[in-house]
């Protein structure tokens, strides 16, 4: 019995390693910069500036952060891919409305797809004693319910000329993890080992894309968020927060890729 158990354990260990080899691309000299332009109404995100959401409610943003994680590059064969190890990137606006992730040691290979997620996968989300961008000192970990805020948006809701109310969206929880893919791209790290991808991040889409206001609700890509719904169920992990998660999955726009 014990021998069988041992055998089972060892075979599972061997299988685990084999699967890994199949999808592994040897690290190379490829270098990819992902530049993120944080935009609101197609203009650079500006803190404490008066904005209007898709439901014509006025607000300001004073803090905006999110986790971009688990970057994967795929080639057209659909079998080979390279997963960036320990890929957790806290995106925040510091001084200027653009920020970059620099990835090095990538395989010198022709890739056609960029994939990443917004949030933190459950393997990393269930324990907050972590270093790097996941260090709870960065203020993105909950201290009473283990896990990370995937996206943090704070500011003020401007109710009328005199009255304001805090605008606080701390969205997290497994159900709000979203994955974004850009396919059919030419990320040819075999030809030029240093490249830069530029992505626009439409922060306003978190509350709904105003350009879709004239479309019937069922034909919109984004959900229009009503600031009047501001219980914990709407602003942290409740079912309503998945509307916001669906929105932040839509906020990325591929602009260009160029050789550095």
């Amino acid at each position, binding site marked *: 019995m014990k021998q069988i158990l041992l055998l089972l*354990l060892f075979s599972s260990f061997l299988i685990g390693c084999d699967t890994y080899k199949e999808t*592994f691309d040897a690290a190379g000299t490829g270098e990819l910069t992902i530049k993120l332009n944080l935009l609101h109404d197609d203009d650079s995100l500006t803190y404490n500036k008066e904005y209007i959401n898709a439901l014509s409610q006025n607000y300001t943003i004073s803090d905006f952060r999110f986790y971009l994680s688990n970057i994967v590059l795929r080639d057209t064969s659909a079998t080979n891919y390279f997963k960036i190890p320990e890929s957790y990137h806290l995106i925040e606006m510091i001084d200027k409305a653009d920020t970059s992730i620099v990835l090095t040691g990538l395989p010198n290979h022709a890739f056609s797809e960029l994939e990443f997620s917004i949030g933190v996968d459950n393997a990393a989300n269930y324990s907050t*004693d972590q270093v790097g961008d996941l260090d709870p000192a960065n203020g993105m970990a909950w201290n*009473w*319910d283990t896990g990370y805020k995937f996206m943090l948006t704070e500011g003020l809701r401007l109710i009328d000329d005199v009255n304001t109310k805090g605008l606080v969206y701390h969205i997290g929880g497994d159900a709000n993890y979203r994955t974004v893919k850009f396919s059919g791209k030419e990320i040819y790290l075999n030809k030029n080992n240093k490249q830069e991808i530029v992505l626009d991040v439409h922060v306003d889409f978190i509350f709904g894309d105003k350009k879709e206001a004239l479309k019937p609700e069922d034909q919109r890509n984004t959900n229009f968020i009503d600031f009047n719904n501001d219980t914990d169920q709407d602003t942290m992990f*409740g079912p309503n927060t998945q509307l916001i998660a669906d929105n932040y999955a839509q906020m990325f726009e591929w602009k260009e890729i160029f050789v550095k």
Partner: protein
Amino acid sequence: MERNLCKIVLTLSITVFVGACLFSCEENRQASVISYDNIPAPDHNKMDLLKVELGRKLFFDPSLSKDSTVSCAHCHQANYGFGENVSLSTQGVSHKPLLRNSPTIINIAWAKGWFWDGGAKNIESLIFGPLTHEDEMGVDLKLLMRNINASAYYKKEFKSAFGIDKVYSAHLARALAQYVRTLISNQSKYDLYLEGRYQFSEKEALGYQLFQKNCNSCHQEPFFTDFGYHNNGLDNTFSDDHEGINKGRGRITRVDEDLLKYKTPTLRNIFATAPYMHDGRFNSINEVLNHYEKEIKHFPTLDSTLINGIQLDASEREYMLAFLETLMDSSFLELN
């Protein structure tokens, strides 16, 4: 990373295998479950004497708090079972009363969730709660880590325990977690009884029978808790205030089935851990027994074992108290 994963899998496999062998040799004696030799710990924070010792120093160090006045030990005092003798603590940096009773720290390495509602998924993550809560130690982690890295003493301590030159909040949490995992109570008369080194008196034996009949479904031996969550009929209302803190387990799982449920507290060292319940509303065991006898409030999530309450007559109460007395562990309470 993936290569490390293989190593981890291998190590785990061996551990499980060896563990399985040991388990079968050990005859599964209850008393040996709660032991320094088998403290459960996550793979990334395996028990280590130097780390435990560092964690102990941190636990008693008030300089971890915002204004250097409050240590973990202020609300987790050894003589109260590493809990506190007040319902709601005002010892935090703001001196505002907390919303829950400081829980005891007794054999919590074996728990499955931490805090009264199990919101913390492991002890390492739990540590950041009391450290950063504005009404507890209220510290800014960035500032704290800057101070720790500026301290020649702690730099040296972390270097020898973790082999690191720069200390991150994760290391602080890991050291503290290791120390609290060693807060083990297994030297009570009940434990001696399990080892065959103590005979219950007649009253204690009768109390033990009553306990097994009425309490054991939640306060399971040998931990005297099932580490599960139950509604024991304290309330039948709740609100959304303070992130729904009085929804109990329900605010974590966000399902109605868990509303008003709280983690079963251990009965070990029970006479040292008053007041009782998640908000410290009962000052004595007699008040607790009165509650179970005739004050149960009905709600859909009420534990099925408590629908009719627990009735004990005066002599049965006396036996029950006699048995509970055998769960006291004076060496754990540092009373010797």
